[in-house]
């Protein structure tokens, strides 16, 4: 009797550049760079960065210890002051979203699933290596509950306690104490001391980045805008992982080129392109689905109120006295008081900020994205819609996730919305 020998087929290792994660990133990056004409030359820095980091999986360098953050409420100034490097871990990949779905509830939000999916993966992209500590602010419930899961994946996690009520003095004091405890933890981690000089330098480092970012606003306030939203989102997205000083220099270079374009009368869009304010769940590369659909359909995203961009970089630390204690308190205030995250009980500030942005950027309408499963953004839609309705500003609400399968339906909605904005403009003219 002849028996055939069983052979075990060995798994062929797939180089990162040929992985699904890389493929997804490459598709979106190609869309960003090739589907639009006349991109600013200074954007090349960012295109190359995303090409290297997301499409080729190149290692992202950092100085000192690495502290991962899962939310913008973690004061990065403190991390820099201890000679460590912060790295924002919030992830936008559909591939990681599906991976996170292996061990997280199907109804949790894509962002949280993708972030945990990435942390559970062999190739962590951006390829930052293993963070020495992950700081997880207790903001929304899903992030809160991620903490133990991230620990379960073998990471050291610090829960940074964040209040739910913004207006009360008790919250403010509670939060200031939480920030001090975070400083303590960083001290134990790095073995360094927090000094007045180092903290002041760290605040200045971030402030320089913020100034460069604010200057960029000017070119989006112009009508027609000189830079597209897809590029602006890529710029702020790079802030998540890029060396902050190189980032600031690259944004300043971009600002110079845009100033030249302004002088030369070069515009990013047609005069009548509907101007859109983007709010809600944050677009994070490669999930730039909605901003890209808006701009491919002839609209332009002129401003945003999201934690992957404007909310992350707009508000600056206001220090009265440059003493260590005052600086720490001012820092804490910066991360609490102007915050317009929907996790708070009331959202008067968010509504006010949105209306302010509509006016400052002459937006014709608003696109509100909520990731399916992101309860707080879903719950806040009604009050935000009412506020815009009262002000006579059209708003399109879209519930979606990272999967590309609803692109057809989404494009219909976005096109119809832009067509209605155009028609409204025409009537008013």
């Amino acid at each position, binding site marked *: 009797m002849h028996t055939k020998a069983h052979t075990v087929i060995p798994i062929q290792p797939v180089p990162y550049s040929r992985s699904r994660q890389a493929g997804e990133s490459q598709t979106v990056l190609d869309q960003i760079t090739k589907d639009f004409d006349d991109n600013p030359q200074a954007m090349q820095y960012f295109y190359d960065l995303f090409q290297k980091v997301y499409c080729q999986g190149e290692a992202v360098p950092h100085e000192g210890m690495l502290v991962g953050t899962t939310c913008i409420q973690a004061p990065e100034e403190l991390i820099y002051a201890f000679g460590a490097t912060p790295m924002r871990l919030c992830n936008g990949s559909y591939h990681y979203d599906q991976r996170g779905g292996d061990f997280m509830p199907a109804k949790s939000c894509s962002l949280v699933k993708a972030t945990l999916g990435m942390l559970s993966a062999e190739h962590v992209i951006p390829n930052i290596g293993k963070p020495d500590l992950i700081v997880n602010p207790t903001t929304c419930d899903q992030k809160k509950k991620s903490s133990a899961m991230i620990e379960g994946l073998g990471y050291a996690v610090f829960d940074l306690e964040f209040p739910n009520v913004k207006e009360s003095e008790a919250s403010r004091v509670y939060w200031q104490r939480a920030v001090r405890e975070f400083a303590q933890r960083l001290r134990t981690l790095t073995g360094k001391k927090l000094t007045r000089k180092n903290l002041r330098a760290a605040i200045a480092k971030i402030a320089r980045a913020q100034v460069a970012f604010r200057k960029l606003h000017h070119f989006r306030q112009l009508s027609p805008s000189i830079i597209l939203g897809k590029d602006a989102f890529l710029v702020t997205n790079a802030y998540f992982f890029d060396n902050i000083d190189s980032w600031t220099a690259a944004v300043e270079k971009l600002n110079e080129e845009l100033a030249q374009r302004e002088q030369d009368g070069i515009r990013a869009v047609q005069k009548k392109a509907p101007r859109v304010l983007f709010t809600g769940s944050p677009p994070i590369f490669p999930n730039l689905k909605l901003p890209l659909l808006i701009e491919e359909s002839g609209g332009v995203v002129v401003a945003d109120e999201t934690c992957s961009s404007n909310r992350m970089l707009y508000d600056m630390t206001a220090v009265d006295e440059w003493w260590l204690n005052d600086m720490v308190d001012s820092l804490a205030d910066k991360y609490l008081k102007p915050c317009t995250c929907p996790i708070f009980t009331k959202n008067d500030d968010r509504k006010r900020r949105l209306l302010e942005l509509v006016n400052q950027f002459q937006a014709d309408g608003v696109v509100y994205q909520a990731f399916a499963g992101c309860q707080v953004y879903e719950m806040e839609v009604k009050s935000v819609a009412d506020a815009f309705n009262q002000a006579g500003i*059209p708003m399109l609400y879209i519930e979606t996730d990272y999967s590309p399968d609803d692109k057809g339906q989404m494009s*219909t*909605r976005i*096109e*119809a919305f832009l*067509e209605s904005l155009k*028609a409204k403009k025409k*009537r008013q003219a």
Partner: protein
Amino acid sequence: MNKNYFAGIDVGSTAIKVALVDEDGKMAGEHVTPSGSLFHKNSLAALADLLAQTGVQRERVRYLIATGYGRKLFKEADDSISEITANAMGAFETGKAYGGVRTIINIGGQDSKAIQIDDTGSVVHFVMNDKCAAGTGRFLDVAARNLELDLEELGEYHFKGTCAPLKINSTCTVFAESEIIGLLANGHGKSEIIAGIHYSIAVRTARLARRVGLEKHVYFDGGPALNKGLVAALQEELGCQIIVPEFPQTTTAFGAAILARNEFLAEVEDAH
């Protein structure tokens, strides 16, 4: 005869609809054909069929606007526009005969929507069901197949029942299918099941309509508007009268044709 014509082609998920209007914006012909799998080829054939039926030469069609899910595939069009804007215009024009329309309910093959328009036919606000075939034409297709009926028979059966309509609880087309099979297995009559299906769609659709705000008059179009049972259920749910046009399937194509006409006339005016 050198009359100018304008066409709208609505490349939908289930059917391709073509409409032709003359310079006065009057409907000159309309045609409906299944989409099949070859959207582009079938769209070209649908247009050719309509031209043959009406005896209009292709070169007399001076402007053509494509709309619907497959609008981008129809490269022969002069322009494309979303089906929401086209639907609004079609209902606005058709609705003039009924004393004006402000709220539009559309149920298509794979989605349903409610649109609010202003007194110029422009879209003020719209909502759509979220990426799922619940409560759409596809849902009726599946139900008809389960009950071994033709789609056209569902409307009659709605009124035949002697018992109260059954409750269909599943919002998912796939799960609803097993629910229907379960009800049949329990010996329930077809007409009670069908009425239940219609009410289940009507409840979901009425919710969409209330979200955009109900304003007089309410207009109902799309293939499923041909189903009289569904119309009755929807009227009951909304608590108001609804207008169902003579050709509910071609409202959007007609709107695209009207927009094509307006665009052409505006361009001619610009040229002078």
